[in-house]
């Protein structure tokens, strides 16, 4: 009799472990998929910025301080890894590109330049996509972390190798998506 009770407990424990494990795997995969969506857009942004800087530099004939700032922020953002590091770096980059957009606005010959306008449109769009994808990513992270930290999964999560997922927040741009008037 006691043997059966023990067997029953072991089986129940095994089933619970399997269910917990599978649930956590699903959650983790979703956060990774969501992150890769953001990552694609971040890479695209990092690729677009040097082009815009180059076009602006060519059109103006000299290098402005604003441009140096953008390039520095861009390089810092490229070397950041993981959501927690990338967040502030990308926020700083957004700040710097806003400065660059401001520069474009105040120079009619830049505003009229088709290349500048096309690049500005692409950059605005990638920023928007990052913002929209971030919402979905953070939702997935929250639901994964909650599952991971809930009792009784919390007893097994760490020993099964499920670490916490990092939120992606861009402190400077938290309130509003940068807007550029494109005419």
């Amino acid at each position, binding site marked *: 009799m006691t043997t059966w009770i023990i067997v029953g407990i072991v089986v129940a424990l095994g089933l619970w472990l399997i269910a917990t494990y599978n649930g956590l795997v699903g959650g983790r995969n979703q956060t990774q998929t969501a992150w890769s*969506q953001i990552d694609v857009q971040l890479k695209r942004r990092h690729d677009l910025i040097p082009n815009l800087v180059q076009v602006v530099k060519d059109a103006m004939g000299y290098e402005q301080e604003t441009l140096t700032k953008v390039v520095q922020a861009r390089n810092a953002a490229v070397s950041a890894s993981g959501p927690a590091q990338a967040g502030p770096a990308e926020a700083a980059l957004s700040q710097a590109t806003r400065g660059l957009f401001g520069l474009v606005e105040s120079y009619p010959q830049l505003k009229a330049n088709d290349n500048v306008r*096309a690049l500005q*449109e*692409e950059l*605005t*769009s990638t920023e*928007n*996509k990052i913002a*929209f*994808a971030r*919402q*979905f990513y953070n*939702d*997935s992270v929250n*639901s994964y972390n909650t599952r991971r930290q809930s009792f009784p999964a919390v007893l097994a999560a760490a020993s099964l190798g499920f670490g916490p997922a990092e939120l992606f927040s861009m402190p400077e741009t938290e309130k*509003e*998506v940068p*807007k*550029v*008037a*494109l*005419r």
Partner: protein
Amino acid sequence: MAGTANFVEAQAGNRRRTFLLLALLTAIAAGFGYLIGWALQNETTDTFQIVSPLGLGAATVMATASIGWSLISLAFGSRMVLSMADAKPIAREESPQLFNVTEEMSIAAGVPMPRLMVMETDALNAFATGTTMSNAVIVVTRGLLGALDRDEMQGVIGHEMGHIANLDTRYMTIVGVTVGLIALVADMILRTLQWGSFNRGSNSDRPAGSKGGNSGGGILIVVLIAVAIFAPIAAKAVQMAVSRQREYLADATSVQFTRNPNGLISALTKIDAAARPFPGVSSATQHLFIVNPVQRITASLPALLATHPEVADRIARLRNLGGQ
């Protein structure tokens, strides 16, 4: 997906309503089939019958046809709507901004990127169609591409993406093609009757080879005229009931995606100010557009007959969501 959780309820509602609409249509078609068969039978026999085998046969045929139509419209409904509207695919190079904005909204909504098409007209309008989320199409007019700035276009595409995410597009597409079909059939019946009476009138001395003669044809003709007159009215009523609530919901969904009510407010203002009928808009497709291009909503038009709420009303609600 976490991002689409809010839409599950709206989607289930639209699936149910689509099914109910098609089931109702089948029942009505069967009813009319019976009536016509019954009238024909009473015309050809001397004894008056309530239960008519010919009526039952005709009812079966009509019901089968209606079910067939349901399946066809679910499979090809969006293609029919697109060809009624004469929409053509648009290349990315023609308007990168339109593609960018749509990609942004599809990320925000968590739905696959819809196809984009354009209607060649200066008028300002847009609509979405599609019977599933993966065959969805957003159509804008050429005029809209030139008239709206980025934020405004984002508001409009957000509204259409809301229709797709809520699966409004399925119901609205089915209603559109069904209204079109009913109008077509009613028109055909009326034309046939006209032609028939003309023929009969001019050849009155001809020996009546066809059965029925003059007196018996009465019932059948009355039934057919009733069908031809009441079917379009009923179809219209269904169409009117379709979309007022949905437009408010899609406006709110757009703001949820863009987090910017002002873009949609100013887009609606522009579209409303320029609204007019244009080629490609018919009574079957008018309810699909973001602002009804045919029906200018005025004080004289009762709200019950409108497919869309008044734009001023929509803007007032958007202001409540934080717009200026």
